[in-house]
């Protein structure tokens, strides 16, 4: 439950609806429509899916139509044309009574300024959705208490909203949306009014809650860092249109337009990039059955303080440090020289989570879900990845000054099988899925 499909949704403000809709269907855009018939286009021919159980982030500057789009989903704003399907129900065709019942059942909403009723206690606020559903008091109180515990407000239920800090009020707002047990949470700039530290906590907690509850969340935000922290797909909007849809790392790596590129310019790359994008796929990998002599031959170029070892199936086995290889007897095999506790991270790990390990223990092995070794991350790989801005080095020939593999992040044209990775279009490819 909780799949949302938008089909050609448009919202026109002002007069001349019919004419504006006609213009849009002929491919005109906001500015052209305004010029032609004076109507203001709030949303322009928007189609996309929200997958069940995902956090989808609607992003854009103010006035880009993201809040309007969110409100179209539960028809707080009536879309002028288009269909909105939630599971198999066409929301746009519901009658008044059906719409109310559908809102009660399906949607929970969290607001930027919390929107708690000041004359009610937290408990009564959290139970509001159930009260509207005419749930008996006892049941309502139980469900509200559960939601209050879930968001960590236990002990505050008999307080009034003004007695709580902003962060706690928004927890109550979240609890209110959760208590109604709706499948879909609509969150409108839910954390934007909180100060940065609290905001980060709330983002982490929302992710944690989402892992437990598996709701479908549509989250409106103007903050790219927030989108990255929440870790869902991003729908980037401008002038009522969708400009790009994708995982944060895709959007950062391959901005669809100049606008998107500028939008993502100041993003913290370490938070967006995944270990697999940074891993040096071209690095030399030894086999456990190699003899020391063979290994020395293959690593003669040096330049590293250790090498990763993988078996013939590509499974990660361990790591050999350079000094051990140098001191070993020629007849031994590599398998006898492995480090006991090599640093290993999974492919989807965020780069900022890898930093510490690399700083402490040198190279870290990046391993895919099936145990296959993707490659090592050394401090050099990290510096290279962070120094590279997407689309900023087009004129640069990566192979001249950098070892093989460096073009992974900077270039966009190397799609040979061996370097297939971050820059390859990867919409829907399973190994890009964010945990």
């Amino acid at each position, binding site marked *: 439950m909780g799949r949302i499909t938008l089909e050609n949704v448009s919202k026109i403000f002002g007069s001349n609806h019919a004419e504006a809709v006609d213009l849009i269907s002929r491919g005109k855009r906001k500015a052209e429509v305004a010029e032609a018939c004076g109507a203001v286009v709030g949303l322009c021919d928007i189609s996309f899916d929200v997958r069940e159980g995902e956090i989808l982030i609607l992003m854009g500057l103010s006035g880009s139509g993201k809040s309007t789009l969110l409100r179209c989903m539960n028809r707080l704003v009536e879309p002028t044309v288009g269909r909105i399907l939630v599971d198999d129900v066409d929301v746009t065709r519901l009658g008044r009574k059906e719409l109310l019942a*559908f*809102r009660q059942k399906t949607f929970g*909403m969290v607001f930027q300024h919390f929107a708690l009723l*000041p004359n009610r206690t937290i408990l009564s606020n959290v139970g*509001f959705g159930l009260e509207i559903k005419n749930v008996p008091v006892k049941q309502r109180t139980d469900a509200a208490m559960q939601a209050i515990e879930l968001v960590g407000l236990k002990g505050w239920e008999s307080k009034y909203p003004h007695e709580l800090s902003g962060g706690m009020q928004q927890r109550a707002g979240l609890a209110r949306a959760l208590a109604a047990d709706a499948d879909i949470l609509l969150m409108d700039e839910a954390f934007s009014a909180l100060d940065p530290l609290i905001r980060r906590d709330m983002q982490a907690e929302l992710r944690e809650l989402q892992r437990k509850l598996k709701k479908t969340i549509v989250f409106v935000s103007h903050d790219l860092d927030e989108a990255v922290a929440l870790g869902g797909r991003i729908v980037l909007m401008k002038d009522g249109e969708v400009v790009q849809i994708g995982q944060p790392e895709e959007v950062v790596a391959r901005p669809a337009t100049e606008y998107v590129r500028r939008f993502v310019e100041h993003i913290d790359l370490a938070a967006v990039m995944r270990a697999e994008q940074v891993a040096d796929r071209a690095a030399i990998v030894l086999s456990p059955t190699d003899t020391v002599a063979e290994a020395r031959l293959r690593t003669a170029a040096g330049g590293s303080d250790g090498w990763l070892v993988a078996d013939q199936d590509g499974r990660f086995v361990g790591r050999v440090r350079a000094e051990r290889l140098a001191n070993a007897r020629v007849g031994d095999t590599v398998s006898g020289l492995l480090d006991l506790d090599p640093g290993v991270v999974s492919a989807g790990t965020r780069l900022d989570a890898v930093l510490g390990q690399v700083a402490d223990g040198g190279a870290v092995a990046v391993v895919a879900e099936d145990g296959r070794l993707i490659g090592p991350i050394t401090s050099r790989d990290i510096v290279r990845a962070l120094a590279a801005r997407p689309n900023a080095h087009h004129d640069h020939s990566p192979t001249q000054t950098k070892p093989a593999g460096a073009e992974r992040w900077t270039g966009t044209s190397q799609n040979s099988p061996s370097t297939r990775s971050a820059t390859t279009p990867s919409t829907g490819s399973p190994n890009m899925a964010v945990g």
Partner: protein
Amino acid sequence: MPPWLAIAVAALATAKIGGRKVGLLTLAGLLFLWNLRLWQATVETLVLVILATLAALVIGIPVGIWFALSRRAWRTFSPVLDMMQTLPSFVYLIPALPFFGLGAVSACFATIVFSVPPVIRLTALGIRNVPSELVEASDAFGSSATQKLFKVQLPLALPTIMAGVNQTMMLALSMVVIAAMIGAGGLGRAVWQSIQRLEAGAGFEAGIGIVIVAVILDRATQALAARARPHGSA
């Protein structure tokens, strides 16, 4: 009911609503009026004021809700409210007479017409001023219009509506005094008679009586309004 008992009950009631200070004020004020032999007139005035106010609220609050929810109604009838408030209060006495004749009924009718605008206005204002985010929140959770009105809009508008009640009551009091001209009893009649007989002293006593009644009613309704405010906010 003997005056002393009525005074005690009134003092206790106002003390319960507004605290000890208001209770003591009521006690002292009413005892003073009893002492001036104005008790009977005071009771008549109070009854008229309270009846007229109740009637004004019964009419005014629903109309105010209607005005708040319907922009068109508000635009159409707002000038009527303006007229009702600016028309000299004496004018209301004239149409009341042919319908109800001389006496308390006519007085009550004129009082209601004169005192109903503030409660209509402030009810509409209170509901319109409920933050739109709260109204939206209640919509988002699927409230019907009735649920929204009774669970969100009216409770949040209550402090403003209570301010309207206070205003209406004060207007009703001033009108009840004027309505003595068409035969309403009470303190107003005492004033009216002393004007006709040029008894400055008696007129002054009755005037003081009206002030005391006004202060008591005002304090009591203001205390009610303060109670309606959400906890903690000033």
